């Protein structure tokens, strides 16, 4: 009959989710600036899919639509997935990804707040396992592209697969720096040779990508300043990458990329500030968050260096999602006055 407290602070899940989206905007802008219009189309397409799929799932589970569509969590998932996919990914790739993200990873586990795994990362993992070819056709940075696609041409490519006449696929897509690195290493080239031979490498990270990473960092810092995300996860995640990559680079500079290069990838920054910080699937204790972040950073580099896929952020975070209950159980902070008891 009573529900204390009788007064509530202003704030809601919707506000949290909208702030996350707002803080992603710098990254999106940088993305458009460096890689063209494709990402905007895919963000919109993913958002539409997310809301439609969410509505469908809610209807099937006889949950009310309005409060759960308005909470914004589906759109956040959509953006995170779209930003992880190649900017010119075909429409059906996003569809399959969102189907798994919203349908399987979120609603089969009980919907908002109940999922064990980050939905966007489940969608990403399913896609990279099922469609490795499409997933590595990254849009070339505009500065390297022979002829940038216009908005209409991007739309046509994403939904029709057709390119303007006279333009080959190689003109619009290229491998990511991480992918280039991996292929080169498989061909027994040294790091130095690969970087000298390819033009996708920028001053710190990849051409274009390093700007996007910097924008994610900026947005992420705002998110932290607003106390939406705790400092522990991003800091530990980046530290995990830096330390692991640093050790490998120190051990064999010819094979393993420098730590700054690893951190300056868009996926690392997006993962650190926006994906690993997902409260639902992350650790909740301060020490637990440090362990969670460090583990995810460590696994990211390990997978990049020794795994079968060029990037490891998604798998690293999913693996750490799995460990969350254990981490939380063993990192409970002492309660007020607990120290004096013993």
């Amino acid at each position, binding site marked *: 009959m009573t*529900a204390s407290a009788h007064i509530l602070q202003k704030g809601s899940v919707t506000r949290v989710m909208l702030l996350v989206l707002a803080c992603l905007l710098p990254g999106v802008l940088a993305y458009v600036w460096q890689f063209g219009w494709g990402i905007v189309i895919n963000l919109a397409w993913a958002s539409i899919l997310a809301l439609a799929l969410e509505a469908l799932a809610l209807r099937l589970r006889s949950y009310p639509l309005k409060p759960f569509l308005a909470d914004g969590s589906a759109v956040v998932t959509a953006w995170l997935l779209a930003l992880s996919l190649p900017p010119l990914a075909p429409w059906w790739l996003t569809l399959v990804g969102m189907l798994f993200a919203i349908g399987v990873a979120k609603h089969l586990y009980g919907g908002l707040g109940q999922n064990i795994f980050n939905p966007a990362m489940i969608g990403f993992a399913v896609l990279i396992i099922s469609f490795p070819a499409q997933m590595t056709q990254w849009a070339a940075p505009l500065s390297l592209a022979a002829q940038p696609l216009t908005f209409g041409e991007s739309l046509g490519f994403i939904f029709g697969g057709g390119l303007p006449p006279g333009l080959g696929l190689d003109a619009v897509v290229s491998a990511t720096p991480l992918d280039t690195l991996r292929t080169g290493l498989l061909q027994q080239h040294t790091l130095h040779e690969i970087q000298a031979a390819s033009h996708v490498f920028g001053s710190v990270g990849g051409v274009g990508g390093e700007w996007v990473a910097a924008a994610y960092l900026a947005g992420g810092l705002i998110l932290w300043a607003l106390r939406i995300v705790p400092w522990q996860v991003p800091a530990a995640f980046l530290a995990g990458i830096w330390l692991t990559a640093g050790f490998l680079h120190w051990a064999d500079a010819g094979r393993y990329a420098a730590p700054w290069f690893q951190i300056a990838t868009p996926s690392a920054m997006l993962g650190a500030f926006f994906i690993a910080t997902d409260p639902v699937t992350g650790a909740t204790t301060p020490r637990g968050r440090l362990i969670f972040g460090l583990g995810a950073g460590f696994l990211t580099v390990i997978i990049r260096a020794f795994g079968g896929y060029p990037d490891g952020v998604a798998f690293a975070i999913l693996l750490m999602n799995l460990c969350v209950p254990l981490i939380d159980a063993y990192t409970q902070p002492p309660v007020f006055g607990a120290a004096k008891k013993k």
Partner: protein
Amino acid sequence: MLTAILVMAGIAVAVGAVLGFAALRYKVEGDPLVEKIDAILPQTQCGQCGFPGCRPYAEAIAKGEADINLCPPGGEEGVKKLAELLGVEPKPLDESHGVQKPKSVAFIDESLCIGCTLCIQACPVDAILGAAKQMHTIIAAECTGCELCVAPCPVDCISMVPLKEDVGNWKWKYPVFKLKQVA
């Protein structure tokens, strides 16, 4: 060949020694199963299960002579706990032994009591106070609500009064948390 056999034998001896030591070192005292079952039973001592009290029933369960669903005061929840303890499937309460009733205490209509002491003898937990030819009274706090005193009373002056919720025993309710649409 010989070396392999010797190595294997050596490992076997070593492991055996460790196991033997562990068995002695970490020995578990006694068989606490009866105690554990008895702890789950509600201690009403009503005998509805067919055994003269909760402990005999616990012993029978432990020996596998009685089923776990014979205790109406324990209710479905009690059956579930027993099933969990014994690692068996829970089953519905056996209604031939009675149904679960709200917790009650016996009440003696003191204007009718003749002081025959028959109820005092019937009470399994000595919760009735009185002497021969003196009016008897139930110690409500000790009464388990077993009803065993009701039948022996020659003047039918004992009735079972269900315990009512009051400010003293009231519990906070589970918050209603409606996510689903009410159909």
